[in-house]
């Protein structure tokens, strides 16, 4: 059983009269990648900033690797790598200088391999202000992991990036996961959450509304049959093995546990109504879809 490395206990955080986190509880296990998702204003960034030690809270405690943030902030900075949602450096600083600065502050030498992996090696002589958004994001990720921290916190790491830049970051984040790092990330990109995270905490109104694992969503017993027919005769029909869960234009989405019984039932019905299939396919449930439903307030 994996040990808890971050423990958020009964946290209350408000900005003036506006309370953002309510008696909030969350545990992150060592070596897992936890995604924190939720609509805008749900408290994701506030939560991360409390864990990062940037914000103070009114009630509760945060314990990281057995210590509170107040106990030993220097130690926590040494085991934590942080990429903020809106991060910046002086426009005139060169990439190599920023790397040198962060390396010397953490008393580590510069890992040239890391520079190449994040495609930053060719930017070293450029000034920060002249980098593109993607280049800045890659640099900030590099600075966050330069000292080989045990915990990596990424607040919307791929926001505003193009496909290539995203791919590069996914590769690196997956590599970090494989090397046993604990990763905590927020994102509005459900594909990203599905592909990177082992577990997802869904925030609603300052609390964890739902906590789900990939396995709990990718329930292999249930699959979806998507069918469209000429006469649309499958609408409003009670089936024994399948349940209509969604209609999207001409397509009907049936959830079923027993795929062959379900198919047989659907085909029999179509025959009896003299209806013809235009298209039929079977799809697996994805975490992305389920999370998107939750974001829309249609959670299961």
């Amino acid at each position, binding site marked *: 059983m994996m040990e808890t490395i971050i423990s958020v206990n009964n946290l209350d955080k408000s900005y003036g009269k506006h309370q953002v986190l309510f008696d909030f509880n969350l545990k992150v296990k060592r070596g897992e990648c936890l995604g924190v998702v939720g609509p805008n204003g749900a408290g994701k960034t506030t939560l991360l900033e409390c864990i*990062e*030690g*940037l*914000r*103070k809270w009114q009630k509760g405690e945060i314990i990281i690797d057995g210590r509170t943030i107040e106990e030993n902030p*220097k130690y926590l*900075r*040494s085991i934590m790598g*942080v990429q*903020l949602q*809106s*991060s*910046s*450096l*002086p*426009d*005139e*600083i060169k990439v190599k*200088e920023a790397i*040198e*600065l*962060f390396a*010397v*502050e*953490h*008393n580590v030498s510069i890992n040239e391999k890391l520079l190449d992996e994040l495609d930053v090696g060719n930017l070293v002589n450029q*000034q920060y202000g002249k980098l593109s958004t993607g280049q800045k994001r890659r640099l*900030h990720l590099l*600075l*966050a992991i330069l*000292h080989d921290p045990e915990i990596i916190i990424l607040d919307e790491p791929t926001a505003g990036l193009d496909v290539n830049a995203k791919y590069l970051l996914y590769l690196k984040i997956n590599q970090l996961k494989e090397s046993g790092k604990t990763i905590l990330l927020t994102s509005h990109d459900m594909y990203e959450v599905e592909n990177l995270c082992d577990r997802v905490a869904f925030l609603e109104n300052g609390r964890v509304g739902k906590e789900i694992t990939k396995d709990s969503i990718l329930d292999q017993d249930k699959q979806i049959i998507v069918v469209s027919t000429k006469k649309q005769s499958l609408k409003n029909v009670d089936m024994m093995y399948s349940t209509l869960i969604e209609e999207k234009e001409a397509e009907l989405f049936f959830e079923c546990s027993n795929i062959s019984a379900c198919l047989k039932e659907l085909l029999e019905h179509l025959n009896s109504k003299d209806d013809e299939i235009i298209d039929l396919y079977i799809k697996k449930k994805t975490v992305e879809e389920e999370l998107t439903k939750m974001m829309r307030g249609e959670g299961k």
Partner: protein
Amino acid sequence: MKTLKALFVNLKIYYLMTFRNVFLVIAHYLLPILFYLLFSVVFVGISPDNKITIIASMTAFAIAMNSYIGLPGSVSRYAVGDIKRAYIAGGISLWRVFICAGISNFIHSLITSLVILFTAGPLFGATFPSSILWFLLALLISIVLATLIGVAIGMFSKSRNVATLLSQVVFLPSLFLSGAMIPLDVLPKFLQYVTYIIPLRHSVTLLGGYDLVALLVSLGFIIVLTILLVIRYKLITKRE
């Protein structure tokens, strides 16, 4: 050892960054030198007696230009906003950044001051300080004081725009009420009293020659500003 190395790297980066920002190059070097050349011609033209005070007044002006105009904007970036948060989250010591901002400004001010010291004689026939040791001590105190004021403007400003505005609010009265541009005895009586609260006034006096009151007042300003900056630093770096 690590602290010293980190301080050196911070200082090197901070100093080099100045030369990549046109505004800072203008504020730290071009304007002080240009104004020194222009005003020296004017002052010596108005009265040859000004040759005695030209080094003190122009040096004070250059130091003020460096510290009040060039420094606050670059310091305020680290006191508020995304850079400050990125540095804190990244484990970068902000105190090192502020110290390096001060040292970097000290170097810029020293360079322009020495240019004035060694060229004012050959170019305008200015009188060289009778005691170079005293002048250098006065220069050291004056730069430290002006630098602390510049850092304070940056650290107390809520944004870079506010820092720029505050810079002007401090710089312009300092210029006219310090004796660097206008002799103090031509000012109305009540303004002459006001000049005592202007730190640059005491720098002009110190750079002109030994003056115990100006020395003690300057040191007093330095102590008070240092205390204020330590308190402000604590507030800046505490959790929001």
